[in-house]
């Protein structure tokens, strides 16, 4: 399972030594600009530039990255479809009447809005991927500590983090073992197999909890967790580059705020 979490990929990216603050400013800045943009141009610009950065600079495998982009598609597609049918304005392009009492219209306005939202999702997701793929959570914990997020919350997050990986490996092995004995082969059986796996995992969770308490006792636990030493140097040059990039996108956003797919203004 090792290969299925973005975190694992992030641990090997080439931007790992850049101070997380800079990466977060860039990533979150781009997300907010994407969501705020009234036109599809800026989010697509962000998506394109950040994807290039992820693949070319951070060195993430292109094939893998393209696969990741498919993840949001399912939800986005269905939801955007709904929006295209319910948010009518402007010229009617398409009219369907699947059932006698239901008329579905597709208009220029709804298409514009649908496309805008799709582009926001696209831009936002690429920005999120930028954070996920370049900034391992291990770096975020110490950042959180410096930002004065309460200790117990960070400690809890770190424990959850640690056990995500322990359990995911176990779940993967259990599932493989079930597959080898032809588990998940029929519908009702699949629910049963899944429930058994989850139950077994729950029992393991229980045991892990006991072991963890014991391990912490053995090491004189006194309510403290260590932080990572020596944060990465804050590169002023990188910071200025990020500011320039963000300013540029804001300018693009303002210039292109009227651009739409079909000319008429969105709502």
């Amino acid at each position: 399972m090792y290969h299925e979490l973005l975190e694992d990929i992030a641990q090997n990216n080439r931007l790992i030594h850049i101070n997380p603050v800079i990466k977060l400013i860039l990533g979150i800045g781009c997300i907010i600009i994407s969501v705020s943009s009234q036109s599809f141009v800026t989010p697509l610009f962000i998506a394109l530039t950040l994807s290039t950065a992820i693949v070319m600079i951070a060195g993430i495998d292109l094939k893998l990255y393209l696969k990741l982009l498919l993840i949001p598609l399912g939800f986005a597609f269905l939801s955007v479809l709904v929006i295209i049918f319910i948010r009518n304005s402007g010229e009617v392009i398409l009219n369907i009447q699947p059932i006698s009492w239901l008329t579905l219209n597709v208009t220029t306005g709804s298409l514009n809005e649908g496309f805008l939202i799709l582009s926001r999702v696209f831009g936002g997701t690429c920005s999120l991927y930028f954070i996920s793929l370049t900034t391992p959570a291990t770096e975020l914990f110490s950042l959180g500590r410096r930002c004065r997020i309460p200790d117990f919350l960070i400690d809890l997050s770190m424990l959850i983090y640690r056990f995500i990986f322990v359990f995911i490996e176990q779940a993967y092995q259990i599932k493989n073992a079930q597959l080898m004995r032809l588990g998940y082969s029929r519908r009702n059986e699949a629910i049963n197999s899944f429930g058994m796996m989850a139950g077994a995992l729950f029992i393991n969770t229980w045991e892990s909890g006991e072991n963890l308490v014991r391990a912490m006792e053995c090491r004189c636990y006194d309510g403290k967790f260590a932080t990572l030493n020596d944060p990465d140097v804050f590169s002023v040059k990188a910071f200025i580059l990020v500011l320039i990039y963000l300013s540029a996108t804001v300018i693009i956003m303002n210039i292109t705020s009227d651009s739409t797919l079909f000319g008429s203004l969105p709502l």
Partner: protein
Amino acid sequence: MKAIIEIKDVSYKYPNSSYALENVSLTVYSGEKIAIVGSNGAGKSTLLLMLNGILRPQSGEILFNSENISYKRSSLRELRKKVGFVFQNPDNQIIAPTVYQDVAFGPVNLGYDKDRVKTYVNHALGYTGLLGFERRPPHHLSGGEKKKVAMAGILAMEPDVFVFDEPTSALDPASSEDIMELLSELNGHGKTIIISTHDVELAYPWADRIVLMNKGKIISEGKPGEIFTNRADLKSASLSMPVLMDLYECLCERGLTFTGNPPRSVLEMVKKIETFNQGPIQRDEDMGKIYILNAESPAIDSLQELMKRYSAQSLGAMGTKAKICLENKNLSPDFTYGVIDKCLLKAMNSGNSIIVTVPVMIKRIGERVQDFNSESGHNIEIIEIQENCQTKTG
């Protein structure tokens, strides 16, 4: 021999890491005992996971019974029925609330009816010596017992090929020997066995063929005697020689000359050392005898009497059934592993012994003793004790 699995030029790479397998080719023949030997991270498990389609090679192909593996759902079902896989960690394999339910998991998924499931499960439990454990929760079993439940779960599906990832990891010596003997027994029934291990001491005497792996590649393959004498290959695989082999090689380097193959057991090493020693070693005139008793024969009830009659000083048990049978009679055998060699040693020192075993192993005992006799020039006799308590010379 007929090829049962052919791996042709297979490569596999986990994303964002180096090759786990790189252009690996290997043919497994029906009825073989193969050990894939290498240190952790050598690619052993990745290779094994390909054999029943859990992982799919990114290049190259895998043939089962001369046909390309198909990754369609129904074909995978067929394949997994024929190639059984036992994981390294039984905790992640046996998850049903009771032993019976766990062993029945496979047969139930094969769609067998209730009676048939019961027959298969009972057979598998009997084979692994777990009858009476049906209602026990796997949780409360020892490591060795858990491993046996995992094996029984696969056994109940009656596959032709058994794949075992690190069969003895984390087991104590007695449980390890139990498991390895079960594997030999399965092999005696004609099953093909493939194990992965980093334990050279284990693989050396057990395997018919060794496949040495490192960093996703096969370094060498061949008979144990060839692979484990190659210090350079072993070093590049971060492994060391089995102790006996090491001793043998060191003695050779010191200028002693031995005849024949390198020793695979203490017995063979003893014989080799004796060949050049002129000391007070006991001579061949007064060899002991080895008696063999079928664990299923009624004569087993009069075992103690038999031991007296044949003036046998030691009792060996080979195979799960034999061990359980003796246990039920409150007899504790002197030897429960490496039994033939130990009895041969006894015989060389003019002691008699009785081996209790199952029919499938009797043939193996005969072969081993004959091998030993022809190589050493001794003439140690094996005698099968007949059901009617008479004897037949074998």
